[in-house]
């Protein structure tokens, strides 16, 4: 190793340079590792299988983009219906989860009662809980009540796994909102309800956007709950419906990657436009 100080140590400059190289090399390796699978998905989705597999090898330099895979999805699968099911339960559980979380977060922060730390532990315990371990009991109850294969049941199940973190997030968030704002509204004669509507909710906006994003991501990503609660094809969400595509003879990798690309659009938009709310969520723990 180069020594310029003459004392048998690596010189400061050389050390700095080596460190710099190591830093960039790590960044490069992880970027490549992250990008390759995404790139492969996109390329296979946007060219016809004939082009992808021409010559018996996989061609990953797109030369002839085509909508063929998407047209097959539209024409000969129930992709559209699966997407509609996903949207219904995702939006439903996002609204439900966020509403419960905002109310609970505000109440837990602003009202004093004994057993607060027990409540915190209950929320954290459900936050760490395993979706599949909850899915079995939910299946049993929904089955007894005849609620299997309904949007309502799946919405509840999805809310069950997203609400604990959303509550935790809002609880932490409201603690950073000084009560002085509300007090000055009360002093000026506003009722508690008006204060909540005109002071608390606007201030809490970044918090509940963040909670909504996590609730949305959990529901959109979900496979476990939908697999357990929905057994009829017409009720499948997109993740369950598409997971069965590869078992069909008529569907190949082109269509599979095309549907993957479509499923990835909402997460892609969140990453691009709502990143800071997501990072805010990670500062209090993130979700499964």
């Amino acid at each position: 190793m180069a020594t310029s100080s003459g004392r048998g140590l690596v010189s400061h400059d050389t050390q700095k340079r080596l460190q710099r190289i190591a830093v960039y090399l790590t960044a490069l390796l992880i970027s490549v590792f992250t990008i390759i699978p995404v790139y492969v998905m996109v390329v296979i989705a946007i060219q016809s299988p004939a082009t992808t597999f021409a010559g018996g090898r996989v061609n990953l330099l797109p030369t002839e983009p085509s909508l063929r895979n998407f047209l097959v999805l539209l024409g000969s699968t129930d992709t559209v219906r699966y997407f509609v099911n996903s949207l219904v339960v995702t939006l439903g559980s996002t609204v439900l989860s966020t509403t419960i979380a905002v109310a609970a977060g505000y109440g837990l922060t602003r009202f004093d009662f004994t057993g607060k730390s027990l409540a915190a532990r209950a929320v954290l315990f459900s936050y760490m809980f395993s979706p599949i371990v909850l899915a079995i009991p939910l299946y049993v109850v929904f089955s007894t009540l005849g609620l299997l294969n309904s949007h309502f049941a799946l919405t509840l199940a999805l809310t069950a796994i997203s609400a604990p973190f959303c509550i935790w997030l809002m609880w932490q968030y409201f603690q950073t909102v000084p009560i002085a704002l509300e007090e000055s509204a009360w002093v000026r004669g506003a009722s508690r309800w008006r204060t909540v509507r005109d002071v608390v909710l606007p201030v809490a906006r970044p918090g509940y956007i963040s909670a909504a994003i996590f609730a949305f991501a959990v529901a959109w990503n979900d496979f476990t709950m939908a697999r357990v609660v929905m057994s009829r094809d017409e009720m499948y969400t997109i993740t369950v419906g598409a997971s069965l595509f590869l078992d069909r003879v008529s569907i190949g990798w082109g269509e599979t990657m095309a549907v993957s690309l479509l499923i990835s659009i909402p997460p892609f938009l969140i990453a691009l436009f709502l990143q800071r709310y997501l990072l805010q969520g990670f500062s209090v723990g993130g979700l499964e």
Partner: protein
Amino acid sequence: MSTALKSRLAAAGSALRERDVDGTTLLLAACFVPMLAFFVVVWVIPIVYALGMSLFASPVRNPEFVGLGNYAELLGNGAFWGFLWNSVVYAVATTGLSLVIGLGLALVINQRIRGGDALRTLMIFPYLLPTLVVIFMWKFILDPNIGILNQFLVDAGLIDKPIAFFSTLEFAMPAVVVTSVWKFASFAFFILLARLQAIDPDLYERARVEGATTWQAFRDITFPHLRGAILIILLVRGIWMFNKFDIIYLSTRGGPLQQTTTLPIRVYQLAFSEVNFGMATALAGVMFFLLAGVAVVYFRAFAPEQEVA
């Protein structure tokens, strides 16, 4: 609402009702009733119901009370311990690797390198992409017939013939682990990056002035600030990976020959392939108590509730 609950809530709100602002009781109810109702409906009732069910043989068709019989049968079967071992291997491998990669990248991006912001945005994708999509990507890459990894390895002369990674005894678990790490390394990364960015830069400046090496600065400043977050990641991520169902189910269904069957996969098999709800709920019960045990340790060691209460 029961009168007992009502009086509890009213008592709880007394502190703020002293201000004598109208509508407080109603607000109190609006805050807590949705959460309590929700917890009772989707958590308490199902879990109690399922725990009850776990005490019966064939609880759905013709229930016969067997007490802890299902649990005895479950724990007495050697296969259970194999599945438990698979869960532990999977959880330790994925959590450990995710932590190492996440930490490395967080340290790198914290250096404010060129392109750091773009790299940070890039890392959001694996975390947000639905598990199914991640599985499709890796199934394609690792496919024995058309997969690009096999193509590359054969071309490079490293292997003679393609490997069916997800369905070969010795490669199935590593393949599932790599797929999982690809998705979950970002989790550790984002949490650690948030902690790193909260460290006062003056500390490093002072260390530099005093002639500390990079390693010393890491050991004495960076690491102590990260220790808490690292322990939390090991614990919480570890629990989640131990309980992970979708990524394993979608990639191998627990095969080949139950090689990647973890407890969550086994619960699903018992309930929906073997339609044995007595055993399925008993196994879910075992997993519930395992989790409760870990939670007790977590609450004792970290007192996380102090962040809010």
